[in-house]
């Protein structure tokens, strides 16, 4: 009986591919969740006058405010 190596390769290749994809997906998702957690933590650490979790728009200082009129942009 012939060996059918191509079928063996297909079976092992398919299994390896699916398992690798699943493993990679787990890793990416983990990194995503980590990143969003860090972002949330940073946001909550920012000082807030009004008690809002995010900084108030009024408390942000636009670039132009600190510059004398006519001065070149940094």
């Amino acid at each position, binding site marked *: *009986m*012939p*060996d*059918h*190596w191509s*079928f*063996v390769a*297909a*079976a*092992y290749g*398919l*299994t390896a591919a*699916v*398992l690798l994809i*699943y*493993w990679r997906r*787990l890793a990416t*998702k*983990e990194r995503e*969740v*980590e990143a*969003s*957690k860090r972002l*949330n933590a940073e946001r909550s650490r920012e000082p807030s006058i009004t008690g809002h979790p995010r900084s108030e728009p009024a408390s942000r200082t636009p670039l132009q405010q600190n510059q004398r009129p006519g001065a070149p942009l940094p």
Partner: protein
Amino acid sequence: MVKTLGWLTAAALAAGLVMAFGVAPREVTQGNVQRIMYVHVPLILASYVAFVVLAVASLVYLVRRDLAADRVAHASGEVGVMFVGLGIATGSIWGKPTWGTWWTWDARLTSVAILFVMYLGYLLLRGTIDDPERAARYCAVLGIVAALDIPLVHFSVYWWRTLHQPPSLMKPGGFTGSSSILWPLLVNLLAFILLYVYFVARRARLLRAQAEAIA
């Protein structure tokens, strides 16, 4: 800890590959295509482990109401469905050159296919419920019903296939018994069970992190 488990799993899988291609002999009647067994059988058996763990975790959730148990059930369902799917696919690839067909409605094939669709439904149910607590409750009930259904499926399919016509002649595993085949199979089985545990550990950890990120 999960990381150590990961390296252990990788080592076991590598050992399994060496056993499957280096140690195991070329099968006399089927030729080298029989080496598919060393990935096919462990996949199916590991998926059975997954479904048993799913049922136990479901029961534990209903008794203790601990979402950690539900996360184990969820992860087991996902990995189990993946393993069964791969097991069916590899079996199909093995069947084509040996039986001459990708699929036959043989008793064992049919009951595994039913298992696949049953637990696919389980994952579908999970996907449609947003409230984690309710998803856990409903899925625990479904997980227990499905587990109790497995013996019924097994018997009904067996009788359906065997009482009115002779059992199919060529079954995978019909030639087991020699230790030269048994050891590679056992090593691969261990490797895939380790892989299952590793995947479930990581998936459950991810599920907890996701739940915490939302909360």
